[in-house]
């Protein structure tokens, strides 16, 4: 909300308090001033236009003015035609800086000297309109402009949703007064009431259908007003707060809204059908031509203000064009009501229309505010637009605001804040904020919040009131530390345990990424991995409409992005959740959120490069699993979406499938615009964490080991893993380790066959093995492989 520093001065003495001081005090009280525009008008003087002539030579229309500046007359050229002789105007003399930053210089325009500049409201930062030179309604030539328009400071403040009373200057000023410990110059409830006969309630009847949606409706009748422009000071304040002046009646309603936070509306009484106001829900097919010029379709969820025939306003949001105040208006009905917050918000959302009024009603205004606002507006109308205000307005108040008293054990203040606030100071603070404090016999305080504070309902709310005025800076920082008899032993978080994996990945050249979990659902569908996808019902866009079921599409996209930006070798990974709807419960229940580890790497162009990359990636994955101190994974030939049909393995841990590893399917890489091969894996990582064991030290071998190589020629279809398992089984206890290290096809190997080379390590815990012993085992292995797999051997 925009707050005018000068306006605050109506309510609290700001002597010696600069705009910056005020902003600081307000921020520390909870009215956060986010930015401030200072408009310094002290260098601008008032001039009176004596003569205005068109510039004879200039191509663009320009006017030459003779301006009386009190002690001399100056020639000033301007482009706008509205500074006619007799006008009082703001003048910036050469050498001054206008508030909008322009520096004024002596100039010569096509042969005519121009000394100074006539200023527009926009140049003085007094408003946004382009009507031309700002014409003043009073002032003495030669005097500083500040004699009629004070220097300004506009604060942009964030008002928290619990403080609708601070959506007006009066509420903000009250905070400031409490913070500065200065008295308020004005009471909350104006004394003004109308005096004209007959009573207003006899002139207009008000009925409310649904008191839950409208807890109060005041309709005041004012007759014989003169509609015209509002005074300059009012227009200026409205503009400063971002509201466009329209006419005195409308401006007054807006002015009171900005002052009291109470929205008001003025109807032209003559344009209402019948002297009755009916607050009801809209009926089927009703429409309203609203003040913004658009015809709004109304629905039965929406509360409207209706006359005898039709809706004339959408309650709390916008008024109707057909009953609006015009220059022809003589008699008005002034509405000051209280509408239900959620209902106004819903209506405002449905209409796609957020107004100053709806923004305030949404936050649940206190109904007592309606009367204060109505009185303030009526007194301003009487003062500025004439007219007679009728006494005894219609005031239908089916849900009177109930006072909420709060009992406070004053020690709670110290207990919660953690510092000592003297009781007198606490009491004084509450009183400054208009709370009534009654000290009871047992020392407890019976506290009555002011009517405009519906947010205070529990003792902790009162502690907050005291604390924020007392100043939280005065609360010393401490660390909690008491004698505990119970505690939870420390254990590393899951993410910190996974750092072991991150170290392996970093050492293997893989960089960690964090990718968005919301992805385009169409992409998952194209990849045929959308079966368990959770769809957002209100997405921001179809690029973020589905929770990912796999991390791989994100990594593939990241690879494409990096390739497009010139990085051809990409190795990246991510540790994050995938989201899988439970079978049969799509969108109805919470999904499974398995934590995944996925990695992806460029793998060259050729089939051989791809194969080698898969084997390298297996080592990376094995390294991760080993770093978690889990048992090694096994790999079974498999096929699944995203992966190359001949180059994919299921990753198995203790017989449980964790995920897949292999080369990506060529259509997947091509679909992502990647030429070349790509290898990847994705596994569930929680089972790996669960399988983690503390490594136990093994005794170091006491006797030397014996290494032998064995090249086995077998049919293409016999997997290395199968041979390895067979060797282990055939070798018996003396074999410590066997590992395939090479695969060969070529001249020495028959077609349809391959040679797989193994390194075998033999060792006995009891003695040094002899060659003869090892030879014997080797020949048993060979015989066994011959028999089982028709193997032959290369020497």
């Amino acid at each position, binding site marked *: 909300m925009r707050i005018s520093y000068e306006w605050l001065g109506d309510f609290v003495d700001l002597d010696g308090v600069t705009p910056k001081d005020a902003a600081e005090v307000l921020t520390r009280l909870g009215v956060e001033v986010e930015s401030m525009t200072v408009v310094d008008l002290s260098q601008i003087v008032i001039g009176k236009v004596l003569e205005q002539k068109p510039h004879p030579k200039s191509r663009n229309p320009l006017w030459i003015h003779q301006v009386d500046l009190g002690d001399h007359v100056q020639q000033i050229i301007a482009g706008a035609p509205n500074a006619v002789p007799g006008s009082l105007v703001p003048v910036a003399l050469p050498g001054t800086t206008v508030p909008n930053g322009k520096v004024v210089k002596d100039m010569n325009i096509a042969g005519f000297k121009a000394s100074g500049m006539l200023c527009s409201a926009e140049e003085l930062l007094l408003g946004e309109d382009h009507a031309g030179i700002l014409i003043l309604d009073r002032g003495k030539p030669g005097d500083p402009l500040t004699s009629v328009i004070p220097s300004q400071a506009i604060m942009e403040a964030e008002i928290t949703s619990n403080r609708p009373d601070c959506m007006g200057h009066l509420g903000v000023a009250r905070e400031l007064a409490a913070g500065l410990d200065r008295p308020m110059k004005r009471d909350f409830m104006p004394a003004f009431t109308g005096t004209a006969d007959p009573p207003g309630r006899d002139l207009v009847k008000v009925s409310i259908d649904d008191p839950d949606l409208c807890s109060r409706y005041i309709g005041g009748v004012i007759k014989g007003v003169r509609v015209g422009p509002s005074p300059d000071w009012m227009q200026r304040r409205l503009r400063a707060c971002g509201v466009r002046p329209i006419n005195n009646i409308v401006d007054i309603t807006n002015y009171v809204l900005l002052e009291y936070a109470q929205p008001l509306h003025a109807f032209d009484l003559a344009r209402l059908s019948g002297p009755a106001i009916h607050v009801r829900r809209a009926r089927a097919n009703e429409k309203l031509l609203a003040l913004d010029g658009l015809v709004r379709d109304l629905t039965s969820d929406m509360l409207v203000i209706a006359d005898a025939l039709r809706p004339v306003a959408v309650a709390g949001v916008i008024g109707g064009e057909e009953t609006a105040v015009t220059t022809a208006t003589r008699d008005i009905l002034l509405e000051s009501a209280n509408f239900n917050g959620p209902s106004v918000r819903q209506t405002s959302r449905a209409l796609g229309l957020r107004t100053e009024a709806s923004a305030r009603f949404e936050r649940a205004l206190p109904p007592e505010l309606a009367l204060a606002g109505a009185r303030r507006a009526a007194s301003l109308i009487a003062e500025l637009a004439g007219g007679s205000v009728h006494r005894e307005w219609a005031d239908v108040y089916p849900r009177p605001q109930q006072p909420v008293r709060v009992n406070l054990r004053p020690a709670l203040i110290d207990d919660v804040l953690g510092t000592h606030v003297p009781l007198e100071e606490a009491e004084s603070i509450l009183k400054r904020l208009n709370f009534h404090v009654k000290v009871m016999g047992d020392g407890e305080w019976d506290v009555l919040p002011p009517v405009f504070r519906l947010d205070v309902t529990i003792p902790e709310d009162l502690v907050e009131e005291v604390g924020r005025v007392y100043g939280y800076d005065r609360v010393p920082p401490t660390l909690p530390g008491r004698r505990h008899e119970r505690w939870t032993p420390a254990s590393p978080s899951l993410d910190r345990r996974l*750092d072991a994996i991150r170290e392996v990945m970093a050492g293997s050249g893989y960089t960690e990424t964090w990718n968005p979990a919301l992805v385009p659902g169409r992409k998952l569908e194209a990849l045929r991995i959308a079966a368990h996808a959770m769809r957002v019902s209100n997405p921001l866009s179809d690029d973020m409409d589905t929770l990912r079921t796999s991390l791989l599409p*994100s990594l593939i996209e990241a690879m494409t992005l990096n390739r497009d930006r010139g990085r051809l070798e990409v*190795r990246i990974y991510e540790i994050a959740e995938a989201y899988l709807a439970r079978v049969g419960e799509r969108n109805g229940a919470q999904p499974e959120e398995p934590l995944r580890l996925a990695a992806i790497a460029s793998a060259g162009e050729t089939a051989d490069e791809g194969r080698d990359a898969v084997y390298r990636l297996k080592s990376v994955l094995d390294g991760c699993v080993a770093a978690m101190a889990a048992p090694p994974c096994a790999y079974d030939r498999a096929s699944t979406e995203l992966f190359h049909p001949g180059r994919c393995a299921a990753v198995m841990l203790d017989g449980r499938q964790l995920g897949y590893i292999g080369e990506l399917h060529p259509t997947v890489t091509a679909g992502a615009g990647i030429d070349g091969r790509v290898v990847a894996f994705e596994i569930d990582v929680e089972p790996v964490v669960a399988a983690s064991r503390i490594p136990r030290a093994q005794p170091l071998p006491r006797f030397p080991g014996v290494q032998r190589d064995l090249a086995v020629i077998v049919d293409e279809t016999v997997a290395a893993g199968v041979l390895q398992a067979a060797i282990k089984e055939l070798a018996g206890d003396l074999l410590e380790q066997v590992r395939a290290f090479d695969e060969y096809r070529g001249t020495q190997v028959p077609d349809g066959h391959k040679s797989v080379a193994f390194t075998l390590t033999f060792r006995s815990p009891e003695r040094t093995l002899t060659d003869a012993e090892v030879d014997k085992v080797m020949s048993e292995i060979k015989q066994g492989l011959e028999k089982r797999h028709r193997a032959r051997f290369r020497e």
Partner: protein
Amino acid sequence: MNDPSALTADAVEAIGKSQTSAELERIEVEYLGRKSGHVSKLLEGIGRLSADERAVLGKAVNEAKRMIEGALAARRSQLEATRLADLAETEAIDVTFPGRPLERGQIHVLTQVRRQIETVLESLGYQVELGPEVETEWFNFEALNIAAGHPAREMWDSFYFGPGLLLRAHTSPVQIHAMQRIKEPPIYIITPGRCYRRDAPEATRLPYFSQVEGLAVDKGLTVGDMKGTLLFMIQSLYGRERKVRVRPSFFPFTEPSFEFDVSCGICGGMGCKSCRHKGWLEVGGCGMVHPQVLRNGGIDPSQWNGYAWGFGIERMAMLKHDVDDMRLFYESDLRFLEQF
């Protein structure tokens, strides 16, 4: 050549002239070689000599051998000393030549920052708690005192899947889960994790982001304790000279509620361009846990009270590393990620 002393003199001369260890090797073989070395040859035909002559010759030969060996050793150590003395020239490398690149990946900057935060708070006795990202409306809103129709609900515009099921807008639901599970305070937990809000992506705001929230429930906790915890955390992450201030604000789940700011690291609080002349940088929200929230977590507010705070991990990383666009964290451009 059969005069041992002449032979020795020849050998010592050759050794003296030699310049390399290879030359010395050759000389050693020439003179002392077991079968065909000159010294060995001196003994050829020794069998024809008398015992006395044999003894004389043997002694002379041994003497020759000893002298040649001594000369060889002396020359060797001379040559080695010279070689070591000349290393600076003979084996110089260009030390300005760049190191050979390692193939090492980076850990994501947000992981690094999250790790630092966890480490600091774990040192104060806080434990990490995790919870689901797809939450029920009750845990995301009602349990946190944000009733339907509450004007504050607008602060957390959320993504829905169906009635009552949404992507959590903050990690606060984890606090409720944790209170319900742990039941008996003291509770000191932090809840890092991903959150979602329906905000269009821009430089300072994303529809997905990561939060860390902290919760302490114990006897007699105060605003001062909360301030001290935040100050400890901030100074541990950013340095001792940093200050923390809490400003009154409003959240339905805390009372009193605050936003907390950290003094600007560039101007030290004097005001500069990077803190928009405020001297302070907004970091997150905090407050004393609302009694109703404790009740919703199954904790009796007449026995226990608590404080809680929360902030974005991205925001912390942006402040720490001068990152000006939050989107960079999630774009996976290696040129960015490799900077940290």
